[in-house]
């Protein structure tokens, strides 16, 4: 089991997206935005850019309070000591830079046996020599009594040397020197493990000063002084010594959020046909920007900068530039003037920013790359690799903008949600219920080269794309959730996207250890591939259950095991200690099912259990507050908080099991899982032995499945209410057998329940006997992207028919009908399209989408997908032995040329397995009959207009009734079918009519979506369910009406 997967459990999208609402065009949105902004309407919109004017601030009489959003460190050139620099916002929206001086980095070394206070000087000299270039870097060495966090040592502290340095950079060198070993007076070959030497200076500072991520800082009057710095344009610039700052814990009133300025933007470049835009060649032609104050519903700045002229856009400040250099310069000036605290966008880290920076460099716009709060720090794009078990490997660019938070919504999406596609379009369809008009990049250049009207049109897309990330962020409350996460775990905001789960636990562990006088060893992780046994799975009794199945869940299983059994670094026992202190089993210590020993809480309470208790009780508080709170904004904060707390609690277990981690302790993690396994078994036993007919119950209960933290019980009763009662009772009964806070909860009943396999099931989810909550599915691959949409829809519909309608026969009929439709070529092409991103061209194996992209390039380089594009394809019929990767084809080309689709491929490779999986538990062997039989006998293949034998074929009109070749003078039917002519005519007419209605509805819908009647629809969004339908109907209607025309007379 992947250790971190737990913590990072993605919030999978349940069911379908929110219903698509009728969408007013984006222009209307712009207009609406304007309406609320009348109060601030000014003649020159650029007057709105600056921050609110600064109220007078007198350091000797006024306290300064601000929310810090980011922090970094630098070396003071005067003192050669590090300074922490906070970037923050006051409650009135003024920007603050606060320099905190005097805090020095340090670490610990255990004092060797026999070490006396007198030895310190010699040790210091020796160490200083060991640190290369470290002359005079050690400030002091102190004698401290501390206890290592790792293992139980009878509660005794031992002497440590606290080494304080001047420069954080020298910590690593000092650590290496000590590990390497050196000699000093009386200690010829000293070497030791260092403690707390691998903690970043900034985090060290925040932990010691009790500063959490994005919390409020108060500088009392008289403790700080103003500072004139040339290098920043913050409104308030102050300096303070670290002992003086007051850090407010984010509770109560201090859980508020400052009026952060959030800037969302999007750029357009004029690419060349078929080539992904290159910054050295292709100009930036438009930049649209929206600025919103956190907590307000609408952006107060909306503007677009356009190369060349552009017609007026309602509610928008449109700025035209004759030169690209001026445009870029103006935008960077704008960013500095607006001074946003948060910068968001979609794929801005990997595209927009690097492109702008490269372009500005290419054009020699010298002022451009200074986008942070510091005037003397150049903004650059750096390549970073990020790898985490939970999130996988990612190569990203990071953009430094000192003092501004960055939230690239694409990265947020990829991290927090598992989706079929991450294009802005499909993400918006999913979360905002909107289709976005998508203009192919080849058209962008045309629009730009048109007139002021076409550029206006382009500007509207650009504005929309700039606004969507903001709306997405608001809808998903990412900013609030991330701020809460930073506060709960104590890490700086920017760590959350840039780093994995571990750092959050590290921060909490160090904070707790600091409080309790523990020191944490700096472990050089080995990265062993030691695997330990994961969670248990009770072998599923597969099948379709038409009776209520009660689900009993252990609430926060792993955290509660750690708390119940006091599992921690600080309680871990080794054999020697047990003898040394004469510890008694089951009184002083327990032995876990994994045969590890931990002392009990009355000997010593573990640090991890305390952290977990804090987290979970804070979560309880947040949930209680959430219930009381009515203000939607505060509710959002609280909800974000409780979620952050839950995730954090779960990640603690993963931290102890991460072998490539900061402080792995497999004894803890293996013990946790072994307890979990035992508990699941015990629960099964307890339930199955109590609920029996012999004990007077109606039926004998049966545990049909169990996994990690839950068991599914079939009590045998038909009545939902009764099943719920029994479930509740059983949960209570079992809970009594375990140590608190382990708690088995009855949560829900599945009825009916389709158990397919381990981690694969579906059921209707009830928490209340009157109405089901939802349809719940696990592990049923409907979101995998290399499946076509048809699979998802068919599986979804079948499950709904089976579970909600309890109509198994109906589901089978439906399946047969779909298969029949598929084989008769009646399925909409959009359902069959598979998409894959063209990320690189040199795959080791030939891949369908790469091969297709190559072929498309030969056909027409202009419309072929470029690197980074998503390639959409369908599988077409190929000759015998044609490799699968050669059977991919562009859906549009397929439509145009009438190329037959390989419907058998879709049946065999796409539909058949998922279908068998859900039907096998119900029908057993008979499930296979769904895939063959009557409904698979009628097959329709379109006649291609190109390729293969078609070169030799002569087109002959055949009778529409019996397919006999027609004789001269017959246009539609042969002599024998003449009697059927009216019928056949009507049949054809119906086909044409259906197509006509489709044609009308589809194209008028696109007109509505684009917000214009008089302009042609240009959108080529392949993610839109309409796109292929629209193309297909054009083609089909043309062909069908031609056929209809053959009935000129009969």
């Amino acid at each position, binding site marked *: 089991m992947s250790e971190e997967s737990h913590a990072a459990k993605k919030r999978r999208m349940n069911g379908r997206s929110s219903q698509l609402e009728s969408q007013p065009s984006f222009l209307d949105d712009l207009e609406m935005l304007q309406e609320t902004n009348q109060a601030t309407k000014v003649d020159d919109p650029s007057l709105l850019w600056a921050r609110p004017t600064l109220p007078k601030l007198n350091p000797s009489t006024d306290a300064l309070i601000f929310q810090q959003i980011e922090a970094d460190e630098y070396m003071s050139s005067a003192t050669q000591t590090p300074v922490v620099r906070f970037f923050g916002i006051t409650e009135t929206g003024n920007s603050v830079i606060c320099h905190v001086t005097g805090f020095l980095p340090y670490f610990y070394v255990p004092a060797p046996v026999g070490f006396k206070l007198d030895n310190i000087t010699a040790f210091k000299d020796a160490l200083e020599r060991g640190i290369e270039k470290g002359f005079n870097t050690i400030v002091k060495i102190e004698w401290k009594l501390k206890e290592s966090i790792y293992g139980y040592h009878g509660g005794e502290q031992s002497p440590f040397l606290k080494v304080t340095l001047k420069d954080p950079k020298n910590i690593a060198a000092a650590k290496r020197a000590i590990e390497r070993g050196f000699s000093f007076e009386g200690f010829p070959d000293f070497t030791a493990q260092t403690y707390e030497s691998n903690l970043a200076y900034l985090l060290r500072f925040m932990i010691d000063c009790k500063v959490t991520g994005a919390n409020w800082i108060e500088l009392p009057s008289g403790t700080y002084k103003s500072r004139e710095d040339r290098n920043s344009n913050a409104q308030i610039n102050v300096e303070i010594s670290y002992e003086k700052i007051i850090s407010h814990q984010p509770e109560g009133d201090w859980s508020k959020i400052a009026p952060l300025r959030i800037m969302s933007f999007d750029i357009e470049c004029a690419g060349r046909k078929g080539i992904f835009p290159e910054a050295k060649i292709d100009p930036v032609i438009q930049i649209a920007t929206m600025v919103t104050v956190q907590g307000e519903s609408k952006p107060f700045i909306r503007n677009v900068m356009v190369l060349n002229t552009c017609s007026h856009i309602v509610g928008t400040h449109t700025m035209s530039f004759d030169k690209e250099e001026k445009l870029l310069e103006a935008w960077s000036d704008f960013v500095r003037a607006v001074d946003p605290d948060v910068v968001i966008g979609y794929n801005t880290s990997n595209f927009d920013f690097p492109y702008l920076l490269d372009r500005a460099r290419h054009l020699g716009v010298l002022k451009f790359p200074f986008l942070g709060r510091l005037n003397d720090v150049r903004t650059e794009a750096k390549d970073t690799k990020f790898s985490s078990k939970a999130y996988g490997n990612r190569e990203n660019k990071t953009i430094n903008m000192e003092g501004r938070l960055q939230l690239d919504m694409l990265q947020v999406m990829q991290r927090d949600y598992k989706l079929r596609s991450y294009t802005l379009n499909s993400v918006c369809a999913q979360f905002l219920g909107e289709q976005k008009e998508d203009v192919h990049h080849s058209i962008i250049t045309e629009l730009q080269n048109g007139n002021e009207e076409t550029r206006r049109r382009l500007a509207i897309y650009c504005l929309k794309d700039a606004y969507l990330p903001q709306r997405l962020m608001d809808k998903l409350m990412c900013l609030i959730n991330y701020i809460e996460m930073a506060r709960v775990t104590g890490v700086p905001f920017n760590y959350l996207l840039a780093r994995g789960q571990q750092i959050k636990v590290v921060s909490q562990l160090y904070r707790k250890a600091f409080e309790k006088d523990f020191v944490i060893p700096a472990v050089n992780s080995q990265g062993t591939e030691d695997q330990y046994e994961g969670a248990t799975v009770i072998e599923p009794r597969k099948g379709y259950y038409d009776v209520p199945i009660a689900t009993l869940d252990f609430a926060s299983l792993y955290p509660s095991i750690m708390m119940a059994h006091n599992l921690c670094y600080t309680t871990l026992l080794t054999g020697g200690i047990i003898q040394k202190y004469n510890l008694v089993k089951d009184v002083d210590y327990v032995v876990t099912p994994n045969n590890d020993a931990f002392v009990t809480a009355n000997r010593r309470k573990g640090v991890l259990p305390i952290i977990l208790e804090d987290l979970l009780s804070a979560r309880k508080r947040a949930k209680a507050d959430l219930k009381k709170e009515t203000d939607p904004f505060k509710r959002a904060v609280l909800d974000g908080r409780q979620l952050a707390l839950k995730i954090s609690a779960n990640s603690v277990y993963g931290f102890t099991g991460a072998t490539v981690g900061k402080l792995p302790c497999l004894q803890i993690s293996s013990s946790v899982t072994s307890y979990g396994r035992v508990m699941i078994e015990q629960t099964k036993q307890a339930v199955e032995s109590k609920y029996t007919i012999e004990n007077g119950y109606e039926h004998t209960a049966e545990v049909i499945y169990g996994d990690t933290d839950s068991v599914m019980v079939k009590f045998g009763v038909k009545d939902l209410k009764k099943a719920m009662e029994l479930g509740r009772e059983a949960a209570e009964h079992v809970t009594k057998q375990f140590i608190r806070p382990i708690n088995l909860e009855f949560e829900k009943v599945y009825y009916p329940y389709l158990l397919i396999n381990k981690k694969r099931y579906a059921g209707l989810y009830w928490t209340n006997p009157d109405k089901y909550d939802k349809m719940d599915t696990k592990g049923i691959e409907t979101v995998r992207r290399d499946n076509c949409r048809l699979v998802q829809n068919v599986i979804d519909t079948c499950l709904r028919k089976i579970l909600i309608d309890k109509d198994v026969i109906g589901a089978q009929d439906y399946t*047969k009908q779909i298969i029949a439709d598929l084989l008769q070529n009646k399925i909409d092409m959009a359902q069959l399209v598979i998409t894959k991103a063209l990320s690189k061209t040199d795959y080791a194996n030939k891949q369908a989408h790469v091969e297709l992209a190559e072929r498309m390039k030969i056909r027409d380089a202009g419309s072929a997908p470029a690197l980074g594009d998503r390639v959409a394809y369908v599988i077409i019929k190929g000759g015998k032995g044609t490799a699968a990767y050669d059977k991919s084809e562009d859906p549009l080309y397929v439509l145009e040329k009438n190329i037959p689709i390989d419907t058998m491929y879709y049946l065999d490779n796409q539909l058949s397995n998922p279908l068998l999986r859900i039907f096998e538990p119900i029908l057993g062997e008979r499930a296979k009959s769904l895939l063959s039989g009557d409904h698979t006998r009628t097959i329709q293949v379109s006649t291609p207009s190109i390729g293969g034998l078609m070169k030799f074929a002569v087109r002959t009109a055949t009778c529409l009734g019996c397919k006999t070749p027609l004789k001269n003078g017959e246009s539609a039917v042969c002599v024998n079918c003449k009697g059927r002519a*009216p019928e056949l005519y009507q049949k054809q007419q119906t086909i044409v009519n259906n197509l006509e209605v489709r044609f009308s509805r589809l194209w008028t*819908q696109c007109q509505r979506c684009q917000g*214009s009647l*008089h302009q042609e629809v240009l959108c080529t969004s392949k993610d839109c*369910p309409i796109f292929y339908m629209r193309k297909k109907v054009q083609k089909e*209607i043309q062909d069908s009406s031609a056929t209809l025309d053959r009935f000129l*007379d009969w």
Partner: protein
Amino acid sequence: MSNMTSDPSTIERRKATFDSLGSLQENFVISTRDYKLQYAHLYYMRLMLMRPILLQQAIKKWGSLDPKAKHVDKVLDVQQGEISYLVGTVYMEMKMKPNILNDITKDHWITAQPDRPKYTDDSDSVYLEDESGRVKLTGAKVNQDLFVTGVIMGVLGSEDTNGDFQVVDVCYAGEGAQEQPAPMETDEADKYVALVSGLGIGGNEFKPLELDLLAEFLTGELGNTKEQIDSANIVRVVLAGNSIVTPEIIEDDTKAKKYGYDRSTYITEPANILDRFLQDIGSSVSVDIMPGESDPSSVTMPQQPIHSALFPSARLYSTFQSVTNPYWSSLDNISLLGTSGQTIDDIYKYVKSEDRLQMAIKTLNWRHMAPTAPDTLWCYPFKDRDPFIMKETPHIYFIGNQDKFATELVEGSQGQKTRVVMLPSFAATGTIALVNLRTLECHSVSFATK
């Protein structure tokens, strides 16, 4: 009917000069189809053709205002606070309009919601659009008047601080020109045209007896001599749509399911009944049959003539004509324009009002018979014309398949006279309308059997 033969004198069917009004009617005929086209062309043509007319009207109406109202060429060039007038296409933003995106996403699971009788909702808003863009219209005037997508309209007002256009007054194209009918000789008896819609053969409401009575009336086999003479004055019969109802196919669960096309579902009987009926009346009077929503014809506007091969008997008569919907023609220089009702049915959905007659009258004033095509009324994507513009004002304008009989003689600003007739469905009401070709008077005749 036995007394018919006993009458010695023969009553002659009256004749009228028929003109197919080629220049108008031909626009409805789609000879070659090209579906690569989008709807933008149709809107563009409509705006191009009608803008000059609207400008004339606007100048006439607002040209002498003081202070002077300025004409703004492009909707987007309106300046805030300046009294001006613009011309453009109306667009109605209505969230209740059927949305295919919704239907598609629902399609796999939830059945589509039945079509709503009206699209109206409090959140609706009115826009005026031209090639440059669109602007939202506000003001009391906007809430009072009746607006539908696709009408070309002029508005007078000014842009407010929201960027909306505050409308003070609106103007429409007004009725098109009309030729004066040649004065008829008064000593002759008046001639009539019979307007019938919604025979509904094969439908639930179809009553064979009433259809027989109608046939007998039109052919002059009904009643006494006086009535027969009246019948003989009917010079033409126009069937305005929905002559046949194709019954819904009810799936037979007991039969094994067939995958693929099932020919046994085709029912020929209604077409045969209609053919016989047309043959009956065609033997004595000229008859035009227009397709309607339920007829076996194309569904998009303009609907093309029902294939005459479906009428193997009636087609043999020269008096029989299968025509388009909408349909232009003229009788004794009295011009007729009729639709089978879809045009007004669709407008009906846009407005809160129930008064269909007023909606029909409104279309005359808009000089456009089907403005909501293509937005919500399915329509062929014309490239170089808009056949629905009423270049002329008809003398008789009838709308088939409406809920009840209603009529009004409308007078245009230049003295144009139009008899507007809302024809009810015959199957539902047993009612037809007769319009006097000299006086344009109109009355209904009922054959209801209960």
